[in-house]
């Protein structure tokens, strides 16, 4: 057992009062999360596989069950513009998108972070065109890693719902926007039992949004005006400070959430990682498959563990060092940065650089929704154990 590891990390998502269970899709978990967070403005443009998120929300708004304004727009660019504007006036704003829609938002993703608007957005991972695909991989959300948004990668529908509520709490404290990321179809269209928390408890946990800089007609201000070189850099520094601060806030709010709802969500999710000799690092819903394979391997006496990265931005350097330094590390990437390799792999390596000697290899797999199976995980572990060179960009499961 590694010392100093909070108990929470191997306890992610466990517990809860298990009342008011509903079998719902990941997309609807986002909708319920938004509804329970009492969002005031919803603006989104439909794209597969995200469409059901806003369909359900529009029904909730239409029936009066959710008192929010639903703004129809002609593009994702406008959807985010609406959310930013609303947020600047002090409203709690929600949107959701996927792949090309997220890419179309790109310019405004920077704006949202720069203007420090605590928007929460559901991002349903879908592989980028072209060629066209509607199936999952993480390149769409990871392409936006430098925009100043926090990114939370979910493994279950319960985590999706909880992360929306937690998301507003955290974002509004640190004044940064946040993406709640889930995988296309694997979560978005797959039904799981989800506890729908009691609204009163949610209200108690998440008070109405108070924007100290809210624009009002009586307090007209300019936002984001031209800033000369004399002044610009400090604003960037402040965003970085907010990201730094977010690490603490995520842990704090995770504990508070656990007190209210019984479930804990932290920065990382450890599955036998504490004492493992080989740790497989992954993120997203396919982590369940990895965990399944690892559990089997453990039963066979192999000393393997899993570290699921839940929070990718801010990047939990300390946690990663705590779990991975001196270990044999396999990083799985359902994404690729062409010319550099798996994105998680690079980040993990940078976290471990210059510290204790650590053996680390990266595998790229499951792009465009290709299945990741337990035998893939077994195969990767075998490959890793045989491997002499670790810096290659390894495509796993490629046709030969």
């Amino acid at each position, binding site marked *: 057992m590694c010392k100093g590891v909070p108990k929470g990390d191997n306890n992610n998502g466990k517990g809860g009062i298990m009342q008011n269970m509903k079998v719902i899709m990941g997309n609807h978990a986002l909708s319920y999360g938004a509804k329970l967070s009492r969002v005031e403005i919803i603006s989104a443009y439909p794209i597969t596989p995200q469409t059901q998120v806003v369909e359900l929300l529009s029904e909730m708004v239409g029936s009066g069950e959710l008192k929010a304004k639903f703004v129809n727009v002609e593009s994702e660019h406008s959807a985010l513009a609406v959310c930013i504007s609303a947020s600047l006036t002090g409203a709690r704003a929600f949107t959701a998108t996927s792949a090309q829609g997220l890419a179309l938002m790109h310019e405004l993703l920077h704006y949202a972070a*720069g*203007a*420090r608007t605590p928007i929460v957005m559901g991002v349903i991972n879908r592989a980028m065109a072209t060629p066209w695909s509607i199936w999952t991989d993480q390149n769409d959300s990871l392409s936006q890693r430098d925009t100043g948004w926090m990114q939370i990668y979910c493994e279950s529908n319960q985590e999706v719902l909880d992360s929306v509520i937690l998301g507003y709490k955290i974002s509004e404290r640190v*004044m940064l926007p946040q993406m709640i990321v889930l995988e296309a179809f694997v979560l978005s269209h797959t039904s799981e039992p989800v506890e729908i928390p009691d609204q009163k408890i949610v209200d108690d946990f998440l008070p109405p949004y108070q924007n*100290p*800089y809210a624009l009002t007609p009586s307090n007209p*201000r*300019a*936002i*984001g*005006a031209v*800033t000369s070189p*004399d*002044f610009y850099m*400090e*604003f960037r*520094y*402040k965003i970085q400070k907010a990201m730094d601060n977010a690490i603490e806030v995520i842990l704090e709010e995770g504990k508070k959430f656990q007190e209210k709802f019984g479930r804990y969500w932290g920065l990382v999710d450890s599955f036998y990682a504490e004492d493992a000799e080989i740790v497989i690092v992954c993120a997203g819903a396919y982590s369940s498959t990895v965990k399944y394979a690892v559990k089997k391997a453990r039963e066979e006496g192999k000393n393997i563990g899993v570290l699921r990265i839940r929070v990718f931005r801010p990047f939990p350097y300390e946690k990663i060092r705590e779990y991975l330094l001196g270990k044999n590390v396999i990083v799985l990437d359902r994404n690729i940065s062409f010319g550099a390799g798996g994105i998680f792999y690079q980040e993990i390596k940078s976290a471990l650089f210059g510290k204790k000697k650590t053996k680390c290899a990266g595998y790229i797999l499951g792009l465009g929704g290709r299945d990741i199976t337990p035998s893939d995980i077994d195969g990767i572990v075998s490959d890793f154990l045989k491997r002499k060179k670790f810096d290659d960009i390894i495509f796993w499961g490629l046709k030969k």
Partner: protein
Amino acid sequence: MEEKIKFDKLEDYPEIPISTATTKHNKTGSWRNLKPVIKDKAAPCSKACPTNTLIPNYFNFFIDGNIKQAGKILTLHNPFPSITGRVCPAFCQTACNRRKFDERISIREIERVVGDLYLPYKIEQRPQTEIDKRVAIVGAGPAGLSCAFYLRKFGYKVIIFEKEEKAGGILRYGIPEYRLPKKILDKEIEILEEMGINFEYKKELGKDIDLYTLKKEFDAVFIGIGAHVEKKMMIEGEENFISGSEFLKDVSLGKREPPGKKVAVIGGGNVAMDVIRTLLRMGANPVLLYRRTENEMPALKEEIEKAKEDGIEFRFLILPVKARKENDKIVLTNIKMKLGEPDKSGRRRPIPIEGSEEEEVFDAVITAIGEESDRSCVPKEILGEDGWVYADKRTGATKIEGVFAGGDFVQGPSTVVEAFSWGRKSAEAIDRYLKGEEIVKVEVPEKTVSFMQIQMEYFERKNALRPKEIPPYERIKSLEIEENPGFTKEQSLEEALRCFSCGVCNFCGICYSYCPDAAILWKENKPEIDYDYCKGCGICAKECPRGIITMEKEE
């Protein structure tokens, strides 16, 4: 907020990039080389109106629901809008910029409604202070009444001498009841009396009073006795004819029996139209005899149209050359005409066709071939070389100091609105004269806003509203039915809203909304340019829907 942003230390920074100070220290107005100027200009309708009534200006107050102010502005130039709102040929409407867009505004109908609604408040124009000077006005017709109204408003003591028993002149004794109800006229006269104007009736110039005595007894004199002498046809037997203006006067005094069943009306002007339409309403079967064709008729198109709708028979290219009385009937000898080359007036000259004479029997014949003023009642000193009264068009000043004249008396038969204009201009000139100022006031002509200066994008096409007229078969039944029922208040508001308000700011706020530098301020409900910050981009001038903002060179 602070005047200037000061971020010296990290802690000075706000968490989000929000303005913590204004940019007012940066007076961007210095970047400008052209400056926008907000200034009202003349609307083409106002310019076309003989009285120069500020039409869009009073419309705007009317639209705002301020009848008092609307009426006040309207009567700055036109003393009796209730009257012109009924009988004016509406020169304004022919000049309306909106004609090039869809249809002209029904200005006259709106004027009538505003004029009528303003009547209860009009008495507020009685003078606040009295001026101890007396002005005599001869003739209580349109010119005289107008002159009296303004002089009294300025504070002068005004006495009107009128040869008839009642005031109004052509308004009472010429224009038929179905076009101008007497009760409107009576109300206007009543207001004039309440304002303190004295009327002396049965006083005829040249008989009961004379100009030199008036000049001696009063500080100034205005003559506006109109033109009521029927021209002669210079043909044999014309002593059997009835004068058109006399006929209309008799009707106004209560005569209801037509002079016969089959009546010939000779002429083609507005009086001819009034006479013949009156005859029809009295039950006669009148026939119009005119020596040229419809194209050359001097009557207003609108009047000709209405007479035709009434079902009146027009006979063109026909001229009576002889008449004789035979058993209470009149036998007219008519000659057929043809049109030759255009004459001085631009109309084609009628030429008799030799040997085409024919006789026709009528119960009566009424002439309406034009009127002249009677100059025998004034001294020769006042006449010009042509034998007409000479008066300055801008002031009404005659060749005799302190004596002013205007209206039909000076210019011959014309419109009511022109007489109103003469009356007002003379009143203003008399005011200046009595204050010892220059009589002629030189005014810089205002630029008119052209159609090209209207930003059409701001307007929707919508045709003009028109009053629902009483159908001809109904209106010809009586002389007492006012044939044009006019607009309701709601209709006139709807129609007034079509107005472009050319050159007259109606505080639409487009400039305020469009200025990218917030350099248009909204002060006391109107736009004002903040030259400290205006960069002179010209967007306001380009976007102003009604041509009020123009870009001018910086000095």
